[in-house]
């Protein structure tokens, strides 16, 4: 596996992975019901700070990743910014009609996507796959065969990407990449998918038979090589997240930056 993690000794690596996952998932619900642009802006600022403080990447890498994600998130709001309904028209050109309300809504959606990406990345950049799946089995009682299935599948990823490169090289040698048009694109996609799928399914089936022979799917009276438990770091984490969320809402009350407190009805 590619190691992106520079330092796995930081605070967020020590949190119980299931707990981290559940908190991240529930933060989604919190920001789904926020319709106040000010709260969203402040939450964005605070989560960027949090990400830069706790993530497991190197400093420069995490800066670029924040910037790129912000740009991509704003793309996702394109339709709402260009064609959103509203009464205060800012700009009009053929079908494009940018309104104040549409713009505010678009920015809110963009920032929301961005916050979810950042939360996802805080999770992804500080969680190692093995403890994550062990924790799922031990804390969330995910059936053993699902968790070990996932782990085995993750170990096959490098092989898959290697195969992907091989297929591409084979196509280049045979001149298939030079063909243009929709038909060629369809043929190429089908070829990629079929070769990769056939190889992967055969390999997965072989591995699963071997794993069952070694009683990987046994459920009763089983022991684990890694015991994932709870620690005081989980409390620190909870406090940190609660503070971030609470401060986001408080700051938007103290220092509202825009007049859009509810983007749905105005």
């Amino acid at each position: 596996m590619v190691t992106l993690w520079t330092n796995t000794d930081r605070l967020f690596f020590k949190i119980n992975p299931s707990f981290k996952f559940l908190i991240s998932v529930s933060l989604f619900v919190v920001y789904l019901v926020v319709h106040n642009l000010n709260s969203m802006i402040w939450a964005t600022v605070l989560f960027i700070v949090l990400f830069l403080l706790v993530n497991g990447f190197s400093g420069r890498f995490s800066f670029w990743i924040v910037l790129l994600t912000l740009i991509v998130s704003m793309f996702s709001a394109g339709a709402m910014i260009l064609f959103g309904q509203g009464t205060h028209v800012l700009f009009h050109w053929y079908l494009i009609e940018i309104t104040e309300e549409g713009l505010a809504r678009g920015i809110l959606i963009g920032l929301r996507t961005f916050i979810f990406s950042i939360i996802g990345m805080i999770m992804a950049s500080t969680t190692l796959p093995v403890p994550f799946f062990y924790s799922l089995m031990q804390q969330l009682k995910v059936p053993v065969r699902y968790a070990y299935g996932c782990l085995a599948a993750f170990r096959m990823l490098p092989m898959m990407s290697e195969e992907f490169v091989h297929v591409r090289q084979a196509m280049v040698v045979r001149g298939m990449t030079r063909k243009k048009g929709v038909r060629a694109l369809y043929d190429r996609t089908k070829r990629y998918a079929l070769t990769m799928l056939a190889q992967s399914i055969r390999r997965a089936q072989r591995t699963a038979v071997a794993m069952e022979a070694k009683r990987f799917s046994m459920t009763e009276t089983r022991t684990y090589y890694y015991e994932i438990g709870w620690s005081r770091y989980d409390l620190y984490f909870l406090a940190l997240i609660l503070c971030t969320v609470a401060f986001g809402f408080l700051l938007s009350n103290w220092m509202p930056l825009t007049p859009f407190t509810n983007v749905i009805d105005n």
Partner: protein
Amino acid sequence: MKKSKNSKLNLTDILVTIVVALVFGLVFRVLEPVYNVLQPLGLHLDALLYGIWFIAGPFAALLIRKPGVALLAEVAASMAEVLFGGSGGIINFYYGIVQGLFSEAIFAAWRYQKFTITVSVLSGVAAALGSFIIDLFYGYLADLAGWNLTLSIIFRLIGGALLGGAFSDVLVKALEKMGVTNLVRPVTKDDYDVLKK
């Protein structure tokens, strides 16, 4: 023999489903830049490509033909996206669950007896409908200009039917010719009839 008739998922089914989901997950990640470039045009051309996000569910169901496989495949594919840090982050997980449930429901409606191209196209369309439920809350769809919203819905349903449903049927048919599907499907009555001859 008795065990393979069982419709409960065993380790082989689970591992194959997850691996299939990961293969599509790789495709998702490769396609994501294309998708992101199409988005800011605002004309929802990206929605045509959206269908490829639904393919894992119908494909896995056609391949393994057991209850629960479509849901597992969609959730696994979305989990992979979260763990690889794909754009959208944690929201992909919710999309995965809803789309998986919707495309599973179509196969369940035929009681897991019928695995034709019609059912798989319907399953792709169902996943597209499911994705709109989240979008309704998430993207304030109702506040878009009318023609724009219609365009988005039509494109996404076409994408779901063609890329999610029909394409997965094409792929599975091809895999049948290659003999790969025999490895993973439960034994059917036809197989026993062959033995009797």
